[in-house]
């Protein structure tokens, strides 16, 4: 088992009028190489779940295990050695005033912590590796290694972030609507890159999306969250038989209310 979450609870602003039960008894198991998508309306607890896995906060109750190791109380920066993460905002995952090469070398720190001292610099061999990896993006970035990342487009920056998150194969990759802020063509390109990288190295991956079509076609498993619970978990035959409509129906049944998210409805219509 690569990821095992058991009985996770998190309440924000406990005891005030703004009390929000963000996670309520969330349990989830993922095999190594599992690729699951997560859907759910805003405030369902998807991002909170990601934050809990990354260690942005320590849960009120429950435990998180990654590759057999209990990481519930491990600090965020230690966890991020084995967890790759992409945000919705393409500008968040990179440092704008640093060059492409410098950004990549920071991502590479994860692997090289034991092999390099604090005072080592980027070696020629690493530069070659970075160039090689960049060329896989097919964006010509390998010839702009000395440019500040701030000069790149949002799509290029998100592709670069993807590369940084996976350069050293993570045990778990968390994608938080990472193509939502990109234009359709760029979004597709970044998504293709994601699919290729994840399948080529069989990375265990969780992806939040508001696109119902993506939720059913990407990966092997679809999760749905609502009000801090996982209300649906389908895979295999059951998932193959599902359409966007049945998924929406299941949601309504599971949550007991209409799934009123414009973005969801919009994308379910346009993406087919």
């Amino acid at each position, binding site marked *: 088992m690569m990821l095992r979450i058991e009985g996770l609870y998190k309440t924000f602003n406990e005891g005030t009028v703004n009390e929000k039960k963000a996670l309520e008894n969330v349990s989830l198991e993922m095999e190594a190489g599992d690729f699951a998508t997560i859907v759910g309306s805003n405030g369902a607890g998807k991002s909170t779940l990601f934050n809990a896995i*990354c260690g942005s906060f320590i849960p009120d109750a429950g435990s998180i295990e990654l590759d057999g190791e209990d990481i519930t109380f491990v600090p965020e920066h230690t966890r991020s050695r084995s967890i790759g993460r992409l945000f919705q905002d393409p500008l*968040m995952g990179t*440092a704008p005033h640093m060059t492409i090469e410098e950004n990549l070398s*920071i991502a590479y720190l994860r692997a090289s912590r034991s092999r390099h001292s604090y005072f080592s610099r980027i070696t020629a061999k690493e530069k070659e590796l970075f160039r090689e990896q960049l060329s896989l993006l097919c964006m010509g970035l390998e010839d702009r290694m000395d440019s500040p990342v701030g000069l790149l487009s949002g799509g290029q920056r998100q592709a670069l972030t993807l590369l940084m998150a996976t350069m050293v194969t993570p045990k778990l990759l968390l994608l938080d609507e990472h193509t939502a802020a990109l234009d359709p063509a760029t979004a597709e390109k970044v998504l293709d890159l994601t699919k290729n990288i994840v399948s080529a190295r069989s990375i265990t991956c969780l992806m939040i999306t508001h696109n119902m079509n993506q939720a059913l076609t990407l990966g092997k498993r679809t999760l749905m969250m609502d009000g801090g619970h996982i209300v649906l978990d389908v895979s295999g035959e059951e998932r193959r038989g599902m359409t966007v409509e049945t998924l929406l129906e299941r949601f309504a049944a599971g949550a007991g209310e209409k799934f009123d998210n414009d973005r969801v409805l919009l994308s379910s219509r346009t993406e087919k």
Partner: protein
Amino acid sequence: MTGFLTAGIIRTALEFGLIYSLVTLALFISFSVLNICDLSTDGCYTLGCAVGAIVTIAGHPVLGLLAAMAAGVCSGFVTAFLQTKLGVQSILAGIIVNTGLYTINLAVMGFSANLSIFGTPTVFSLFRDLFPGDWWKAWSNLILLLLLVLLVCALLNWFLQTRLGLSIRATGDSPAMVRASSINPVFTTIVGLCVANALTALAGSLVGQYNKQSDINLGTGMVTVALASLIIGESMTGHRSVKWRILGAVAGSCLYRFIVSVALRLNVPTEAFKLVSAVIVAFAIAAPQAKKAFALQRRKRAMIAARTKGGAQ
């Protein structure tokens, strides 16, 4: 021109510019690189001067510089610890440390506001005695400071390209990225502020040995001056590579000293000097914005002119 600004005045301006450039480099690390407002600069500068003076009086001027840097590291550590581990806002952390340092500085100087180090050798006098000759006597201070600042620049440039240096830069540049990579922002912030304050204290100890005295109020207004120098430097070099930004900080500091020298030559009375400094600082900080506004006005006028020409046809 030679009458207005003599070689001696230019030399003194350069000497002070180089000494203060170390404080500017410290602010470059905290303000530009780490994106933190470290207001403990004033106190830390005086701390460096006081500690350096005490060790110099004991007969070890070179050790005085190193001891001052060590004291600066301690001061930086406290400031960083307050804001990372104890959640004190960065501006507040600096002010708190600055206030506390006043008493500590007094204590270091044996609870007197003034400390004279006349009659004991300083790094400047030791360097001057290396070679005979009038020319050397006149220029040795500048050469020593130039060598020292160049060494600091080279080391800083090297440091900011190492893995640790890159991590420090990322900490100030993109907090979200740092969280997603394996960098511990608490550690990088502490290291960054320790290095920055070591440079501030080094400048303080150099000024102490240069002036042959330490004064409790020496550092007052230092942070403003260094910030102005930094901004002058950054408006000259722009956001280019680290190497250029480091050199820009040094150049900005020297330029600021020149402006001050000119003001002095124009017989600005000493009582008015704080005001003059403040005006220079305000101008330096406002200059890039004013430049932008002028450019916009010019473009607007050109566009309007082009439009009326087009309408006439």
